[in-house]
C-alpha cells in the first residue's frame, strides 16, 4: 500500500441536526472553500462536496498528524465548541472512506434513498475541484469510479424506481392532506433546481397551476414558462398565499422569509383551506412555528426523513443488493489502489508479458513439428529476449526516481498503456 492515505471527513443529515448543518452549509459556492483547503498543509489531493444534506471533504494526505483538527476547524470554523464537533462528524480512512464515497454516490446514504440528484451534485463538485486542480490521479480515479458504481447500482437494482428525491415525499404528503391534487396551486419560492424538480413531480400528479416567485424575475419567468405558470415578485408572497395550496421554498436567503404572523391572517381570508409548506432550503426559509397554525402543515428537509422511513421496507431488499455491489466495487478499487505502487506494477507487467509469451509459444510450437529440441529452445529464448527488450524502457521508467512524475502517475500510466487493469477484473 502506498504511504499516503485516503481520508474522508464530513457531516450529513444522520450525524448532525439541521440547526448545526445550517451553520456550516457553504452557501457561497466552491471556490473560496477550495482555496482555503489548499492552505492546509499535507493535503496532496482534495475534493469538497456540499449539498443541503451533507458537507464532505475527501482527501489524499501524506500524514494524518494535526490534519483532523485542521479540517474540523475548516468545517465548523469555531461556530460550535471544539469538543462537540467530534460528535457531529464522521471520519473515515482508506477502504472505509472509499466505501462511504460509493454509498453516497449511489444514493444509499441519502435522506431519500435512491434519489438521483446526488450523483449530479457529486459531478458538479468534482468539476469544481478539477477546475481548481486539486484532484490528482488517485482522486480522479476514485471519483470516476464512484460515478460508474452509482450507474451500476441504478441499473442493477430497483433502488431508484420507488422514490425520486424530496419531491416524491412531498407528493406523498400532499396527497394525505389534499386527497386529490387536481386543481391545486403550487407556489415556488426561489427557482432552484430542487424546487423545479419538486414542481415537475407535482405537475405530473395533476397540480393545476404553478406560480414562481424569485428574487430575480427573469429566472422566475423562465421557470414559470416551463410549467405554463405565472411569475411574481417576492414582495407579493403573502398576497399569493391567499390563492395557492402548496408552497415550496428553496431560496438561498440566510434568514426567515415567511413568519407565522404573516400567515395567520391569511388563513382567515383563505376560509381555513389547508396550506402545505415545504421548506427545502438550508438554512431554513420558513418559520418553524408555522406548523402550530391550524390547517397549516410545515415540513422542512429533516421532517421528510420520516416520510422516507415509510417506504423503507420496500426498499430494504434492494438496498442489500446495492450494498453488495458497493462492497464489490470497493474491493476492486482497493486492488487497483494497492497496485498503484511501483513494485506490484512491475510484477504485473512482467507477468502479463510472460503470460503472452507462454500462450503464443504453446500455440505455435506444436505446429512446427520438424524442429529439433535445440531449435525449439532457440525460439523460446528469442521470444523471451524480444519481451525483455520491449520491457526494458517501461521498467526503467518505473524504477527511475524522476522528479518530473509522481510514482502514482507513473504506475497509473504504465498500467493504462499495457492494459493491466482489465486483467484485474
Amino acid at each position, binding site marked *: 500500500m502506498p504511504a499516503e492515505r485516503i481520508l474522508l471527513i464530513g457531516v450529513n443529515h444522520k450525524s448532525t441536526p439541521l440547526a448545526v448543518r445550517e451553520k456550516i452549509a457553504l452557501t457561497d459556492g466552491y471556490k473560496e472553500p477550495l482555496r482555503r483547503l489548499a492552505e492546509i498543509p499535507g493535503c496532496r489531493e482534495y475534493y469538497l462536496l456540499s449539498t443541503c444534506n451533507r458537507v464532505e471533504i475527501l482527501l489524499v494526505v501524506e500524514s494524518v498528524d494535526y490534519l483532523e483538527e485542521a479540517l474540523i476547524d475548516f468545517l465548523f470554523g469555531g461556530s460550535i465548541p471544539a469538543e462537540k464537533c467530534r460528535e457531529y462528524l464522521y471520519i473515515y480512512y482508506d477502504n472505509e472512506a472509499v466505501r462511504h464515497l460509493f454509498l453516497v454516490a449511489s444514493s444509499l446514504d441519502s435522506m431519500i434513498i435512491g434519489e438521483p440528484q446526488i450523483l449530479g451534485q457529486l459531478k458538479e463538485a468534482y468539476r469544481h475541484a478539477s477546475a481548481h486542480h486539486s484532484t490528482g490521479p488517485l482522486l480522479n480515479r476514485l471519483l470516476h469510479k464512484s460515478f460508474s458504481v452509482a450507474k451500476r447500482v441504478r441499473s442493477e437494482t430497483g433502488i431508484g424506481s420507488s422514490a425520486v428525491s424530496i419531491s416524491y415525499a412531498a407528493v406523498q*404528503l400532499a*396527497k*394525505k*392532506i389534499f*386527497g386529490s391534487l387536481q386543481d391545486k396551486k403550487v407556489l415556488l419560492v426561489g427557482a432552484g433546481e430542487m424546487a423545479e424538480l419538486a414542481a415537475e413531480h407535482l405537475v405530473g400528479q395533476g397540480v393545476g397551476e404553478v406560480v414562481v416567485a424569485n428574487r430575480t424575475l427573469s429566472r422566475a419567468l423562465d421557470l414559470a414558462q416551463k410549467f405554463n405558470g405565472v411569475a411574481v415578485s417576492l414582495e407579493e408572497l403573502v398576497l399569493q398565499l391567499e390563492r395557492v395550496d402548496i408552497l415550496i421554498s428553496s431560496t438561498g436567503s440566510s434568514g426567515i422569509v415567511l413568519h407565522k404572523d404573516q400567515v395567520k391572517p391569511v388563513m382567515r381570508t383563505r*376560509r381555513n383551506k389547508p396550506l402545505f409548506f415545504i421548506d427545502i432550503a438550508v438554512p431554513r426559509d420558513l418559520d418553524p412555528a408555522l406548523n402550530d397554525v*391550524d390547517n397549516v402543515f410545515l415540513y422542512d428537509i429533516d421532517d421528510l426523513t420520516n*416520510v422516507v*422511513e415509510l417506504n423503507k421496507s420496500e426498499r430494504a431488499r434492494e438496498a442489500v443488493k446495492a450494498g453488495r455491489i458497493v462492497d464489490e466495487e470497493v474491493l476492486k478499487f482497493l486492488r487497483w489502489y494497492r497496485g498503484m505502487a511501483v513494485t506490484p506494477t512491475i510484477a504485473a507487467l512482467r507477468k502479463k508479458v510472460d503470460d503472452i509469451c507462454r500462450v503464443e509459444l504453446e500455440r505455435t510450437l506444436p505446429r512446427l513439428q520438424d524442429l529439433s529440441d535445440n531449435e525449439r529452445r532457440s525460439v523460446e529464448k528469442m521470444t523471451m529476449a524480444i519481451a525483455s527488450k520491449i520491457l526494458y524502457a517501461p521498467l526503467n521508467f518505473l524504477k527511475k526516481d524522476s522528479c518530473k512524475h509522481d510514482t502514482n502517475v507513473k504506475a497509473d500510466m504504465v498500467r493504462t498503456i499495457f492494459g493491466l487493469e482489465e486483467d484485474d477484473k
Partner: protein
Amino acid sequence: MINEISYLLFQSVLGITFLACAAYIVFFITRKKEVRTIARWILIASGILQTAYLISRYVLTGYTPVTSLHEAVAFFAWASTWAYLSFRWRYTVKNFGTFVSLLIFILLVISASVSRKTAPLVPALQSRWLPVHAGVSLIAYGFLALAFCGGLMYLLQERELKSKRFGYFFSRLPSLEALDQLNSHCLTAGFLFLTFGIVTGIMWAHQAWGTYWQWDPKETWSLITWFIYLIQVHQRITVGWRGKRAAVMAIIGFCAVLFTLWGVTFLLGGVHSYAR
C-alpha cells in the same frame, strides 16, 4: 313463534355484525382489497337483517320499535348502518368502514345487554307521531355518529401529519380533505334530520299536552345538542370552519347526542324516560 324469530334475528344480527367488524379490522391491518369486499357484503347483510329484526319487533309489539332502551339503541345502530351504506354508495372514504362497523357493533352489544322485554305502549306514546319523531331523530343520530367517526379519524390523521411521526395510522387513514368532506356531508344531513326531529317533537307535544315546549330535561338537552350543531353548520358556511376544529366539534356534538339519548334518561328523568 314471532317471538322466537325475533330473538334469532337479533342474535344473528349481533353475530353477522361482529363478523363484518372483524373483517373490516382484518382489512385495516392487511390492506387486502378482497377482504374489504367481503366485509362490505357482510355489513350489507347485517343491514338487511337489522331491518328484518326491526320489522319483527314491530309485528311483535304492534308499534314502531323505538320506545325501550334496547329498541332505541338497536334503531340507532340500524340508522348508522344505513346512513353509512347510503353514504358509501356515493363515495368511498378509505377505512371509514372499520371505524363505523366498530361503532355499530358496540351499539348492538349495548342493545343486547339491556332488557329486551316487550311492554304495552304507555298511553302518552300511542300516537302516529311516535315513528316520525323518534325515527327521524334516531336517523339524525346515525348521521351524526358517522360525523363522529370521521372526526376521530381526522384527529388521528392530523396528529400524525403535524407531529411528523408516521405511525401505524398514517398510511391506513384517508386524506384530511376526504375526512373533512365527510364531516361536512354527515353534519349537513344529520343536522337537517335533527331539526326535523325537533320540529315534529314540538308538534307532537302541542297535540298531546297542549304546549309546544315544556323544558323537559330531554327537550332541553336536545336543544343544547341542536345548538352545538347549529354553531358548526353556521361557522362552516360563514367563515369556513374546518379541519381540526370541525372534527373536535363533531366529537363534542356526538357526546351531547349520547347524553341526550342516555344520560338524560338515567340521570334527569322526565316525560321522555322510557322503560329502563
